[in-house]
């Protein structure tokens, strides 16, 4: 049996098996039940005390959201200031300069919204100080923000009729101390033993065997990589992310890193079932997501391991698949797996260059982000699915003539309007952005030239590069077809805008829906209730997602990825 395929299989099995106990644990953490991590309580109490926070205060959904947004706005300022003055701060052994304002704007927003799109390269665009006090800090706390939002929604659904949805600070702190931190430490230990650097000595200049010299960038890499993966952040320490041999030195680290991307999003879906004691509903959601995920893995693994037909035409031995932009220790199969794992979640780290993957692999990578709900980012992925459930409940309610209800709450016009806006915003910003940039590219070549020409590949693939960039921003993913010359005024600002819109409008909308539903009267289930935990409803939700999210993008794929596939 092919060891590459075996490697992929074992990773998927480990994910599914371990997501169950982790989901159970996460539910306990948010419910505040007794568990092994209670030794953290004094630290948490200390944090509450110095910050003047009352963790028992119950917040209404509006206050919950206000707190979340103010905190995020503060983080934006924090990051912006530190990045622009990073050359004046300590821990800069490589002597790197400050970021320009447009670059810092993009970096800050992108890390604040948990996207981690990078228009700079970590080796030269950041110092050790900003790596730790902006980048890594944001990777922890913004992931925790998404998780806290989901915890609030879970709490509001679990209560029959309520005006409050829990305490934002409480969920935020517990996500950090009890979920993200312990997992990050374990992953960090494994990486260090396997050879990922973790030090502050700065670049090392070493002689090479042929008598030359090589300067090797290093630093506190092993601290940043775990949370980059676990928090579905994805912003690499090095420019090429986890394809860098120091960021991801062995096949074992590759397995661990890949596992870390998907484990919390998977566990979150199950946590929802445990929290609400509605395991069957959670399993049906999990099933739909897992199915979509496996389809993607199948397609990409086949495409990549099969190799590039154009290279085959040259008559050389392409036995290990399409290896352009891939690493030997990882292999084409695992790069394909990772490309799906990183795009179904909002992670966006890569272990090979997506720009060089086969056209249909590129299509699957983009489709995952365009749908943006198969597992998704920590917390927020499940919330996107929740939006589609609301729409599916409404549509199927109309189809079979039953009152649209979800978990004992009537879904009415107001919730539907919010859900529709959230669902349509995503294709809207992606397609408008791509249309705008394509228009400029075709009709204002002087402007594009003044920005360095943008595209690295001509023709269909060039359109894919622009489409991928906005897709990645809107999905808060952060991976890229990195051939795109995107560290320019145009891309920094337009992407920054897309990032903000598509992080906060959905979160506000989803928490609002949950809050509005929570205030409604609880209607006990009866024979007339539409059952939402059945296979039929799972298929229905899948269909709604496919029609709304995937088909909106069919025309643009026909012009980019599909067209390129047929030109192979």
């Amino acid at each position, binding site marked *: 049996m092919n060891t590459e395929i075996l490697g992929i299989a074992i990773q998927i099995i480990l994910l599914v098996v371990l997501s169950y106990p982790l989901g159970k644990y996460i539910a306990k953490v948010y419910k505040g039940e007794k568990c092994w991590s209670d030794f953290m309580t004094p630290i948490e109490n200390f944090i509450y005390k*110095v910050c003047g926070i009352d963790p028992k205060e119950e917040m209404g959904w509006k206050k919950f959201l206000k707190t979340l947004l103010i905190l995020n706005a503060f983080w934006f300022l924090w990051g912006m200031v530190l990045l622009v003055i990073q050359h004046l701060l300590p821990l800069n052994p490589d002597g790197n300069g400050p970021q320009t304002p447009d670059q810092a704007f993009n970096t800050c927003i992108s890390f604040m919204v948990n996207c981690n799109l990078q228009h700079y390269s970590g080796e030269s665009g950041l110092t050790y100080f900003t790596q730790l006090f902006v980048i*890594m800090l944001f990777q922890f706390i913004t992931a925790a923000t998404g998780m806290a939002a989901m915890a609030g929604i879970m709490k509001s659904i679990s209560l029959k009729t309520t005006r409050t949805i829990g305490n934002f600070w409480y969920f935020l702190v517990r996500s950090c101390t009890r979920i993200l931190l312990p997992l990050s430490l374990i992953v960090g230990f494994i990486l260090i033993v396997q050879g990922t650097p973790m030090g502050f000595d700065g670049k090392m200049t070493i002689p090479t065997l*042929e008598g030359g010299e090589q300067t090797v960038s290093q630093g506190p890499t092993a601290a940043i990589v775990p949370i980059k993966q676990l928090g579905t952040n994805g912003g690499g320490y090095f420019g090429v992310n986890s394809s860098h*041999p120091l960021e991801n030195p062995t096949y074992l680290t590759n*397995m661990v890193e890949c596992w870390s991307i998907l484990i919390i999003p998977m566990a979150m879906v199950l946590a929802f079932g445990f929290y609400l004691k509605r395991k069957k509903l959670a399993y049906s959601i999990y099933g739909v997501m897992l199915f979509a995920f496996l389809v993607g893995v199948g397609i990409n693994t086949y495409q990549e391991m099969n190799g590039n037909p154009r290279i085959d035409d040259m008559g050389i*031995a392409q036995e290990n698949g399409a290896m352009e932009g891939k690493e030997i220790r990882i292999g084409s199969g695992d790069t394909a797996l990772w490309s799906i794992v990183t795009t179904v979640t909002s992670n966006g780290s890569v272990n090979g*260059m997506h*720009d*060089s993957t086969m056209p249909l692999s590129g299509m699957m990578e983009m489709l995952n982000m365009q749908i943006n709900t198969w597992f998704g980012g920590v917390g927020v992925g499940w919330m996107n699915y929740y939006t589609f459930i609301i729409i599916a409940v409404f549509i199927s309610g109309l189809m079979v003539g039953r009152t649209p209800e979800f978990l004992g709450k009537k879904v009415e016009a107001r919730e539907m309007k919010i859900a529709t806006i959230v669902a349509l915003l995503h294709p809207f910003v992606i397609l408008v952005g791509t249309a705008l940039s394509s228009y400029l590219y075709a009709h204002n070549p002087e402007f594009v030239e003044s920005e360095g020409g943008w595209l690295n590949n*001509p023709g269909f693939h060039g359109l894919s590069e622009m489409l991928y960039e906005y897709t990645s921003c809107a999905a808060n993913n952060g991976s890229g077809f990195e051939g795109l010359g995107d560290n320019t005024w145009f891309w920094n600002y337009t992407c920054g805008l897309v990032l903000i819109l598509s992080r906060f409008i959905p979160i506000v909308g989803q928490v609002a829906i949950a809050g509005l539903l929570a205030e409604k009267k609880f209607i006990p289930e009866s024979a007339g209730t539409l059952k939402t935990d059945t296979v039929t409803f799972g298929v229905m939700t899948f269909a709604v997602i496919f029609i709304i999210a995937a088909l909106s993008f069919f025309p643009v794929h026909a012009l980019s990825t599909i067209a390129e596939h047929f030109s192979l």
Partner: protein
Amino acid sequence: MRTLLKSLKITIAFCLFFSVCYILILWVFALVAGPNKGNAELVTLNGKVVGAANVGQQFTKDIYFWGRPSAVDYTADGSGGSNKGPTNEEYLAEVEARIDSFLIHHPYLNRKEIPAEMVTASGSGLDPNITRQCAYVQIKRIAKARGMNESDIQEIVNKHIEKPFLGLFGTEKINVLKLNVALDEANKSIIAEK
């Protein structure tokens, strides 16, 4: 305003918690358990450092095994792939040119024996590994340049093949730098000539 103040305080608290405590734990762990006290692992030849084990370096001499093409010429304080799309004509012409040059240096090879890895650029531009086939096709050239037996070199290559993880998962690979160091150790006279 009160929330803003809380935001400031909690951000500082998180800084202490993560950017300081978490970092210190990992740093101390690396000093104790890391392969090179938290720095990149090094490879030595006769007591002299000749490179980082996990970072690929450029080999162009005939006496050494070559690594894969790199879009950044193995500069290890930057990194990068070519990011060329699979149907980009310019890119395909580049690959074609690499095949031609590989054939010139290895005239004994058939076109269909050239492994694609040797003519396609890696993702990081720093790939430290090659496959078994990539090494085999170079043996004849190296044997000639060093005046060694092909079978001796073959043996060294076979010794350096790293099996998939646990023998079951992932790919097989050879570390080019370690392989070349082993060659130099087996064939000391070459070093004297250098």
